[in-house]
Structures are given as structure tokens and as C-alpha cells.
């Protein structure tokens, strides 16, 4: 049944940036469906339009062509049903502390009252390991810590669909694995849908159940694949995706 009604349909979407002097096409006629409960990965080279695509789903950019529908309704504006974790470090509100940043998101979107929000916020701040910085303002955090706050905020919102743009890029190996595990644990608990941008193939396979491969600038769909949890098949899949993406590149094992 859930296969009949996708949560999010993206139909032939072309996204462009118009500036007085330039017209930049970020993605060209991209189509895909995201089902309820999917952990949907956008994978592609730098500048291929992953962030742009996410922002369009977020409701910030109107497609030049094509349309996007969430639960059948056309996406026209942003809203708390699609919670975003941006790639940029300046996505925290500098006038709120770490905890307040999370609390405020919960309250502003009208999810819960102050007390509930504070409890929930603290719970997630602990999850990302920032309990000792709960009362610090964002300017006192390192790059990776800022990103973790944003992740905590996104997850605490428990939205219909969570849009995460390279959330773990600024994290060290260990913290990153912890965050990945937290995300999967949360998914197991609440079965939210997540649209996840990453540039790491391994992460894509670990996190996702469905992977969208995009070609370089402007981004077009190369393939849409199922992921796997079987370690053996995962290595195979990683090789395969690697070949698909970098087909024209001199062969060399991905090492990092």
C-alpha cells in the first residue's frame, strides 16, 4: 500500500538560479519518489545540485519546470513538516543558547509547550554529546559542535520528513559514527522519513535504504538504487556506485 502513495514525489524538476547576469541550472528534470519511512540518499559530486534539490523540497526554491508534491499537495512554501539541517555553519540562531536553539524550534513550530520542549531539547542535546555546552551560545562552539546542535534540532522536531544536507561532514570519525547510529536508532523508533545528502558512498549505504545518484553539474538522475545491510553486498554496492559515479575517471580504489 505504501508503495502506491509516495510521501514525496518529484516530477521532472528543473531548478535554476536567476541572477541579473547569469542563469545557472542546478538540476535538470530530476524525478524520484520518496516513500513513507524511506531513508533516501542524494549522492553526487560537488556542485551537482544536491543542496538545491533539498532546498526546493524544503519549499525555498520554486522549480522552473516540473513540480514537487508532499502527501499529494504541491510544495509552495517552507514549513515545520519538513525540517532542514543545512550544510552551512550559520544555521543556529546566535542569540539563543544551544538548548534554546532546540527548544525554540519545538515551540515556534507549535509542537509542544515550554516544559515539554525543554525536556525533549535536553534529551537530544545529550544525544549529540553537548550537555556541557547546553547553555553556551553558538559562537562559542567549534564547527562540528554547531553541526551537532543542528542535527539535534532536526531530530528533536520529529518531522514528517527530515532533510539533512551533509550533516556529518564536519565530524570526526567517531562522532560521525555515533551520530549515524543515533539517526538509525531514532528511525527505528519513529520511522520518520529522511532525505539525506552525503558525499560519502559508504555513509550512503549505511544510512540509506534507497540511493539517488546524480550526474555532475547540472544534476540529472543517473540511477536510483536500493541499499543493503549485508556487509558483503555493501562492499560490492560501494564498488558499483563508485564505478557509476566516476565511470570516466582513471581507475583507483576509493581510499578515504
Amino acid at each position, binding site marked *: 500500500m505504501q508503495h502506491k502513495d509516495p510521501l514525496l514525489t518529484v516530477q521532472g524538476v528543473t531548478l535554476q538560479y536567476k541572477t541579473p547576469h547569469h542563469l545557472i541550472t542546478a538540476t535538470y528534470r530530476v524525478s524520484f519518489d520518496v516513500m513513507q519511512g524511506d531513508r533516501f540518499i542524494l549522492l553526487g559530486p560537488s556542485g551537482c545540485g544536491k543542496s538545491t534539490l533539498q532546498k526546493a523540497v524544503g519549499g525555498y526554491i520554486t522549480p522552473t*519546470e516540473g513540480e514537487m508534491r508532499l502527501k499529494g499537495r504541491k510544495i509552495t512554501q517552507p514549513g515545520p513538516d519538513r525540517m532542514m539541517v543545512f550544510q552551512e555553519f550559520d544555521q543556529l540562531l546566535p542569540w539563543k543558547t544551544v538548548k534554546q536553539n532546540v527548544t525554540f524550534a519545538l515551540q515556534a513550530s507549535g509542537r509542544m509547550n515550554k516544559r515539554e520542549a525543554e525536556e525533549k531539547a535536553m534529551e537530544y542535546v545529550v544525544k549529540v554529546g553537548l550537555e556541557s555546552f547546553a547553555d553556551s551560545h553558538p559562537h562559542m562552539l567549534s564547527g562540528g559542535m554547531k553541526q551537532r546542535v543542528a542535527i539535534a534540532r532536526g531530530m528533536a522536531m520529529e518531522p514528517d520528513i527530515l532533510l539533512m544536507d551533509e550533516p556529518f561532514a564536519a565530524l570526526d570519525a567517531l562522532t560521525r559514527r555515533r551520530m549515524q547510529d543515533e539517526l538509525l536508532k531514532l528511525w527505528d523508533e519513529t520511522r520518520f522519513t529522511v532525505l539525506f545528502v552525503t558525499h560519502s558512498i559508504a555513509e550512503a549505504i549505511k544510512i540509506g535504504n534507497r540511493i539517488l545518484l546524480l550526474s555532475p553539474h547540472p544534476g540529472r538522475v543517473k*540511477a536510483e538504487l536500493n541499499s543493503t545491510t549485508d556487509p558483503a553486498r555493501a562492499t560490492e554496492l560501494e564498488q558499483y556506485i563508485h564505478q557509476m559515479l566516476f565511470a570516466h575517471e582513471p581507475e583507483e580504489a576509493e581510499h578515504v
Partner: protein
Amino acid sequence: MSEAVAQLRSIRPEPDEPRPEIFHDEIDGDDLSVVEQRLSLFEILYREAWLRKLLILIVLAVIWEIYGRSLNNDLLFPTFSATIAAFFRAVMDGSLPAAAWSSGKVLLMGYGLGIALAATLTALAMASRIGTDFLETMTSMFNPLPAIALLPLALIWFGLGNASLIFVLVHSVTWAIALNTHSGFLNVSQTMKMVGRNYGLRGPRFIAKILIPAAFPSILTGLKIGWAFAWRTLIAAELVFGVSSGSGGLGWLIFENKNMLDIPKVFAGLLTVIIIGLVVENLIFRTIERLTIERWGVQH
């Protein structure tokens, strides 16, 4: 139930019936044609900023005309048409252009000097802590002082005439610009400042090459405010400060005609100020904005 979920966690099963995988052929990157949504005529027109502004101006003029007529008190508040008529008469007989020219000259000099002084003060403020304190203290002390407070010093230092006017103009321009510039400088992101210092830029070069472009929106706001207050002050100051006969500017023209109760001409003088304001905003400041802030994508 939560037990079951916990069970699932470690397995994360594939969907019961696996979804088909999708593959696309490589599309050639060069012939990307896009079918754009068409805009309605209204939308196309509405997108033109000058049309929208023209509309606003027309609406304001109509309101003025109607209110002026309903008031029917030409000695207090003439209609728009009467003002326009007086305006053209004054343009024709040369009195208005002469006055505007005379004011304009003084204004530009005062404005220029004010900018220079503000630049100096702000540079000092960026250079040292005591400079910052100096700027803050001077601004909070002198900015609230009206022009008449400066009259005695102006008379002693510069005597009558344009030099004193310029002194007063500098006073009205400097603080506003300095405040905005300084606050703009402080708001420049730490990273950007570090980048500039990393290039080995220091002192004036650092300010010119990094701080000024980075704080440009704030500076431009300061310049706009300074510009407006320069006009206000000039017009008021031409009354307070002696104007030698025959050399009066717009302020004088307004004052003289007010004394003679030639109110439409007073409003023609004010209209000139308004028109100059509109022209400067839309031709000069807008152009600067288009060439800088908009290109750089620093305003949203």
C-alpha cells in the same frame, strides 16, 4: 511494540517487495531546454521596480491634490497642481535652479568632508580601543546637539557664509555615517577579517580592501541617512546662519517665500528637495547598490 521495534533495529530489513532500481542513460549536457512557466501581463509589469515606484508617486500626488483641494487653503497647504505650476514658474525664471545649485554645491562639500571625517574617526576607532571610546563618546555627546549649538564656534572659526554652513553640515553628516560604518565594521564576520589579516593587510589597506566592501550595506545606509540629514540641516541652517543677500540656496528661497506668504513657491522649493532626493536615491544609490551589493549577493 517497542520490543518489536528494538528487534528491528539491528536488522533494518529491506521492504517486503523490493522496489525496482532505476537507471538513466547519460544525457548530453549541452542541449538542456527548459519549458518555463509563463507570467501574466500583470506579473510582468509588477516586476518592474520603476513602474511600481511610479505608481506610488502617482498615488501620493493624487492624494496630495485631493487633500489640497478639500482643504482649500492655498496659504497653508497648496494643491499639487498649484505647487507644480509654481515649480515650473520658478524653474523658468531661474530662481529655483540657482537656489538648488547654490545649495547643492555647499551640500556636496559638506557631505564630502563629513564622509572624510567619519572615515577618519572610524579608522581610528578600528585601530585602537581608545579610538573606539573616543568615537563612542564624541558621537553620544555631539550627535544630539542641534546646529545652533555650533553657531558661536562656527562664527569664530569660519565667519559667515558657506564655510560655516559646511561646518554645520559636517556635524550633521559625520556622526550618522560614522555610527553606521563603525557598526558595519564590527559586524564583519570574524573569518573575513582573519582572511584579510592573513594577506598581510593592515591599517588603511585592511580597511579599504576588506572592511569597507564587507560592511558596504551598512555604510550605504549611513550614506543615505547622512545625505538626507545634510539636506535637512542645510535648509534649516541657511536660516540660522547668516545668508548674505543674493547668495541664498533652497533654504533661503523657502524662508523668503514663506515670509512673503508665497506658499506655492515654498512648496515648490520643498518639491525640489523631494525630487532631488528621489533622483539621488534612484539613480545614484540604486546604481551603486546594483553594482555592488546585488552582484555580491550579500543582501537577501
